[in-house]
């Protein structure tokens, strides 16, 4: 699991981010570079491993 340092959103690979075209089962490492936090909009570099 990876958590957004800014807003606390947790990316759960089991759920993915279907609202933004990320299929369930997608690993955090496999998210596209332009993916950003669906809650607050910051990019992947702002996420930390839990």
């Amino acid at each position, binding site marked *: 699991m990876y958590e957004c340092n*800014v*807003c*606390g*959103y947790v990316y759960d690979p089991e759920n993915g981010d279907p*609202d933004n075209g990320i299929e369930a089962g997608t690993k955090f490492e496999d998210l596209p570079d332009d993916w950003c936090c669906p*809650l*607050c*909009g910051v990019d992947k570099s702002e996420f930390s491993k839990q």
Partner: protein
Amino acid sequence: MRPLKIAEGIYDVGVKDWNIRDFHGYSTSNGTTYNAFLIVDEKVVLIDTVKKGFGDELLKNISAVIDPKKIDFVVSNHAEMDHSGCLPQIMHVIGQEKPVYCSKMGEKNLKSHFQRQLNYQVVPNGSSMSIGKRTLNFMETRMLHWPDSMFTYIPEDKILFSSDAFGQHYAGHENFDDETGTSILGHAKKYYANILLLYAPKVKALIESVVAAGLDIKTICPDHGIIWRKDPGAIITKYMEWSDQAPTKKAVVLYDTMWNSTEKMAEAITSGLNAAGVEAIPMHVRKWHRSDIMTEIMDARAVIVGSPTLNNGLYPTLCDVLTYVKGLKPMNKIGASFGSYGWSGEAVKLLNAELTAMGMELINDGLKMQYVPDTDQLKTCFEFGKSIAEKI
């Protein structure tokens, strides 16, 4: 008149900031209020504080109800400084060791605001706490509109303390929606357009979840403006409507001008839109505040932007407004550009790029005219407006 009684034992002890006209770049023509709520039960609770500088007035309002030292704890629904600014002062008065209940992100954000270590206690999302006859239910509302934002709900009184959601920058003699009538909706709309629009999909999802949870709401107490007690459903319905950003038959023509040529184009384009039955007015960006322009853009279908070419670039005031609009992420818009130029004429191309970057669909390549538009060229502008109207 403060303190303002909202229900038995529940008061608004916040303050009215009558004369503020610039709220971090948002024009507040009627000032604003910083609402803070005192609940007197077996426990005495203060929900949020006020902007720094208004602490003495807050304490005076609390003292008219109860000795502030009797406050058992503070709930911070939102860490932004217009609501947390007096937190250190209040804690100093009521007792430094008393708890400040807040969300997980609230603790993090409050710690980043104040050097003084306070007794922060995180309340998990969905948790409850009895304060005697009443219960406080806490709901995280992240990004509505900060990561720390939270609602507090009292089921016994059916009152929702909604932090910045459902607020309005408005300080008047009225305190409730039944006193202002529907005129307050214009202020609520401006607030939504300028503070919440970029989170519209989340606002909608959150409201749907609140409705699905069957929360019975009799009164909504936001942290700014009047309290919704006559018809709280009306503002909830409006929030759903604004979140959808369903376009109306409306266009916004915004522009700046150096020697009135782009202005002449703007007025002729507006006439064309109006002639085709589209609601539009030309908005000179140095005469209209960016926050008022944003309010108009929210429910418009077309955004038509005009700039002279200055030093091979855009007129700088347009960059101000477009940066602001872009950040608020308006959706479902079509766009077009126009402008007068002297010799190079880059502005229209640059405006097209800005509109495209905002996700707006360009209606055409834009319209640029050298120096002063003549009668025939103004007819072209009129037709340009009409052709845009056909796409709306």
